[in-house]
């Protein structure tokens, strides 16, 4: 792999950029792989990357029914934070956050991780208590957060109306080292690195069946033919239930549409990510200048990647109230993605009822921020055949035992 650098750009500029090589190859699938990963989104690619990097397993195919990074990796609001309340969540999201910090260097691909800080507004006394609790837990979990005053909120975000007639800002949970990254670049950077390790990324290849013998997986049928494997990793969103059905099991999960939108670009006006759960809205400003805004999920099963407009309304009115100067700005584009929501709204990572078949799904609205941590944990699970400490508590058995990982406890549900 030829390294990217300012020097490389200068070199290529001399020949009008005609000498750049492919970021990743598009090979035909081989007959058999050690590991087949279904889903070339951020999570699938990260799983592949850490299989190679941490375990030296590189005879890997990542198969994707559409284009790589084209699911929720490419349609989220790019927030990265780890200020979760429950231990297992804090652990995996903090792992992810710390991996994001060095991802550009690790992948030699600038994913533009921007640790600009994330604040979650407390707008009721109840929310204050919830966030103060989180700050206490985070301190013991090794996650650096603090509860800050309304004055400090205003200092960080001067355009905020902290004296809203409806909900005054009473403070915020602040994670200074949280932030955003360029979502597409995360997928592309991983893809380039995986391809460089000799892994095969096979796009426009849909799984049509899961092959099994004696309770163990042996391969998959795809639109590109049969592909055999020793181990199968299902790492998809919006399609996990469907895949699981092919493999003969059901998941405690439903698929719903989640929406987001952006404004037209303006000059910088908000330097941090703001999440306001009481009024349901969150907003940051991309490096291009667009305000990136997240909305809510629909209350019904849906695979259309279109959501209902009233969620956009609810989010926008909350943000206009919170940031009055945005009223005359305009919505440029709205879109939806399909998220898989589990019974406790936390993800599932681990073994399945089918031997040598592993699953990583159900990230709901929180998938992007977890990508490297999720990939790390999943790679370990696949390589060792058993979940390691990061993944152990996210297994399917928690629904039988009632051992939930419920994050709605302190901090609303938005991510």
């Amino acid at each position, binding site marked *: 792999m030829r390294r990217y650098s300012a020097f490389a750009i200068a070199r290529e500029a001399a020949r009008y950029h005609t000498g750049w090589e492919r970021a990743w190859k598009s090979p035909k699938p081989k007959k058999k792989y050690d590991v087949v990963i279904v889903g070339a989104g951020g999570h699938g690619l990260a799983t592949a990357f850490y299989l190679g990097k941490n375990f030296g397993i590189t005879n890997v195919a990542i198969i994707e029914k559409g284009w*790589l990074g084209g699911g929720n990796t490419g349609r989220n609001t790019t927030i990265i934070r780890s200020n979760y309340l429950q231990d297992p969540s804090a652990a995996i999201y903090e792992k992810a956050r710390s991996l994001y910090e060095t991802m550009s260097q690790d992948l030699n691909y*600038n994913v533009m991780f921007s640790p600009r800080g994330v604040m979650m507004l407390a707008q009721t006394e109840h929310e204050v208590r919830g966030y103060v609790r989180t700050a206490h*837990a985070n301190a013991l979990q090794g996650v650096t957060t603090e509860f800050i005053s309304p004055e400090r909120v205003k200092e960080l975000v001067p355009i905020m109306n902290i004296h809203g007639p409806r909900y005054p800002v009473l403070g915020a949970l602040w994670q200074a080292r949280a932030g955003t990254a360029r979502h597409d670049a995360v997928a592309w950077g991983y893809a380039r690195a995986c391809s460089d390790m000799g892994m095969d990324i096979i796009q426009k290849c849909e799984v049509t069946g899961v092959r099994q013998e004696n309770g163990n997986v042996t391969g998959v049928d795809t639109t590109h033919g049969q592909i055999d494997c020793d181990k199968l990793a299902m790492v998809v969103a919006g399609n996990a239930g469907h895949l699981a059905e092919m493999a003969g099991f059901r998941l405690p999960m439903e698929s719903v549409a989640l929406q987001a939108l952006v404004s037209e670009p303006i000059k910088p*006006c908000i330097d941090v990510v703001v999440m306001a759960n009481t009024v349901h809205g969150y907003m940051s400003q991309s490096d291009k200048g667009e305000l990136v805004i997240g909305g809510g999920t629909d209350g019904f099963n849906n695979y259309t990647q279109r959501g209902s407009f009233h969620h956009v309304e609810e989010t926008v009115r909350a943000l206009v109230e919170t940031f009055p*100067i945005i*009223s005359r*700005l305009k*919505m440029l584009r709205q879109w939806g993605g399909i998220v898989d929501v589990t019974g406790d709204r936390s993800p599932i990572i681990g073994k399945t009822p089918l031997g040598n078949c592993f699953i990583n799904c159900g990230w709901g609205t929180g998938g992007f921020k977890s990508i490297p941590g999720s990939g790390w944990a999943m790679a370990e699970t696949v390589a060792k055949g058993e979940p390691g*400490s990061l993944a152990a508590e996210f297994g399917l058995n928690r629904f039988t*035992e009632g051992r939930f990982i419920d994050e709605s406890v302190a901090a609303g549900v938005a991510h």
Partner: protein
Amino acid sequence: MSTRLASGGRLIDRSKPKNFTFNGKRMKGYEGDTLAAALLGEDQMLVGRSFKYHRPRGIVASGAEEPNALVNLGQGDRFEPNQRVTTTELFDGLTCTSQNHWPSLEFDVGVVNNYAARFLPAGFYYKTFMAPAAAWKHVFEPVIRKSAGLGQVPTEADADRYEHYYHHTDVVIIGGGVAGLASALAAGRSGAKVLVMEQTHHWGGRAAVDGGEIDGQSVEAWIDATVAELEGMENVTLRTRMMASGVYDHGYVLGYERVADHTPGDGRPRHRLWRIRTKQIVTATGAIERPLSFAGNDIPGVMLASAVRDYAVNWGVSVGDRTVVVTNNDDGYRTALTLKEAGLDVPVVLDARPEATGPLAEAARAAGIRVEPGRAIAKVNGGKRVTGVSICLQAGEGAALEEIACDAVAMSGGWSPVVHMWSHCGGKLIWDEAQTHFRPDPDRAPTGHDGEAFVVTAGSASGPLDLAGVLENAYEAGKAAAKAAGGKAIRKAGPKADAEEAQPMAPVWIMPQGASIKKRMKMWLDYQNDVKVSDVQLAAREGYESVEHTKRYTTLGMATDQGKLSNINGLAILSDALDQEIPTTGTTTFRPPYTPISFGAIAGEARHEIFQPIRRTPMHQWHEDAGAYMEPVGHWRRPYCYAKPGETNEQAVNREVLNTRENLGLLDASTLGKLIVKGPDAGKFMDMMYTNMMSNLAVGKCRYGLMCSENGFLSDDGVVARIEEDTWLCHTTSGGADRIHAWMEEWLQTEWWDWKVYVANVTEQLAQVAVVGPNARKVLEKLNAQAGGGMDVSKEALPFMQWADGKIGAFDARVYRISFSGELSYEIAVPASQGRAFWDALLEAGEEFGVMPYGTECLHIMRAEKGFIMIGDETDGTVIPQDLGLNWAISKKKEDFLGKRAQQRSHMTDPERWKLVGLETLDGSVLPDGAYAVGEGDNVHGQRNMIGRVTSTYYSPTLKKGIAMGLVLHGPDRMGEVVDFPTVDGTNTVIKARICDPVFYDKDGEKQNV
């Protein structure tokens, strides 16, 4: 130079001049002008700078597709960035400034990016700025952020108001051009209820510019006659200045009406967002002309040929004295002819096709215009405006044949139907080889709730580009939509125009065909985002082969115009680079809105006081008048405390606690949920809803009850009273009334529908006041004495945990002897209409007994002193009653209740679950809210092991020390042990607290039972 012609301009009224300023310069236009027309009329060719390279940008188009000409419009509380001048109506006093430059439009330092453009190809930022690691955040990102963005940031809140409007109709026709009008005629004649919306303020679209005849009259005359006919139909509604922003599922259309953008400050809502439900949609959205890709095609003065024509015909504006026309189809000739007719110079028409034989080409020749087939533009000369072009063979590599001086270039690369509204909800496209565009595939229309197609396309939005074809297609579309919407069949014929002959267009994706890489680096596809032909080719070379990858890698089509001009050209370049057919490449997804719509319009009326409903009790105004600090509790606002002048909230709370414990306190408890459950099966039902046994509660008695979710977690609590043999009254938490009501209805309707039980929510029928403290009985007795009667509230007549109906003073009341404070307490419900009067009466009568109202914080402290749990504090959705030592409230006798099975799962019965205890600090201080207790060592994640947490913590003014409750591992077995709570206030201190009984005050309950 661009200028206003001496005559002409079908849309302007020269007797009504309008003054405006651009970058502070005073300018003049006319009523009917767009801001774009007015700027061009004043020779303002340069209007902005591009996003990435800060290149000079001029107006390219005449409508919603304009990518370049965005301005900062207005000032102060009416300031709006990124306003498109081609869709801005001119009004007197309009002010605007250009965007994305420093220090000035003419001299922009950012243009340094342009000189470095060779080092800044598509996606360059993914390949650099990586070392050192911290530099991205501290150096590169701030610089990029500052140079990116377009418009300025508003600094003030919006002065205008907005509103929504719901409309229900049979047929919505999107677009008021001749196609939309023809569709409307058909739909209108069928009797269907029709709404026609047009985004501009005039009817007829572009057809009148192009001329021709409909039914023997001029296009203009036909438009006027048709609008008049439609206005005469009662079932047809016509609406201008209203754009269809998006089509959503089940026939939902958003209409964005710009009511008062052109009359700011006249008191009308600025925008009105129409939320339309319709059976059928006709998209008569027209087509958009495509630019051609030649070197320097972004220099101000290079415009779409149709736009050049529009400015001349509609607004009497010439964009140049000498305009070179370059085209790959017949339509470009119309511009040449129009300009010639207006007395302007057209030095040459460059037709990329090998031959120019169509009737329009012949007409041009006949008008004395030089026509050069097989020719292309090798390069446009000029910087901030066009000064000339070099021409070359289209079939060659760009060797200049001739230099031609000109000050404008009109380009036509063919037309693409506007398919957004068709596509928003899943309508599919097919590639039309002859017209080289994607058009709607009528066999794969979006489908509605009934599974049937609900969108039809009309006119050039369907593909036909000639007047005759447009009218025929549109009339049929109108008929089809009306029929599908239940209209009657019509026989009357639609409008007709004569068919015209035309020479087929030729696809020309770059000009000249063999252009070198150096030339391709100067061919702009996306003008605003600075994406060139070479960038798309680079993306393909690097493996970003999916159209979505290319879009995202190059930012093609991601600017504020969303690629209306650039997408098809970009797709063609990408397909060519990948050596595949264009339909194989496909398109990116069309998403709403069609053009950007204001956040204000989306928020609608929901601003300020009506942002969200505020629920008020009958005594709310009294609380506000008393200066209470109000706290949101769900949608309610409740008094947190009533601070007196000079008092802090904390002092007020302490005073309220002490006064209530020593004298008399009043709490507005009206927000507590009150549900009536009645019926022969009500007892059975109550036993399922509550963990306790409720069916054996005696009439006249009260019992505290718990409700759990099916997942076992504690969800609500409250006192239940048995009113009659078949009737119970359930109190819920303040936030719980609607939730629990819905919960009960859900079970009754969907699981036990054969049980005879009715539930009614009477929360708001009643005002409820907690009269609390040692003097509580005295004040009630005084009221009764004043009224000369009333109920007996003595201990004997109304003992603890009983209720009674009767009169308190003059008020009809239901009185519950229940206590959440540990004091003698009566909770008294009166009709809400008398709530305020009752409150006033209590205050007046209570004066001699030291009455004071108290708020929610005082309530919390008093319940904590008593060790009572609070839903939302001790519970958080993960806590089961057993965790809270509430086993006494869980019936062992009942076979089943909601949550019972869940509580039998292994994790729920795990002895390691944290359990409720009291906590008191060794030094008497108050434990921090939310603090966790730590054990030894770390867990598998390297996190400190936690063994418990604080759930409620207060300073107890009664006990003069901190008290707390918390959940602690093996807590109830560890009475007296001391646990550590690290702080997070930066002091690194650890607070030590002793585990104790959670009941801190009056452990035997003597005070409440007097």
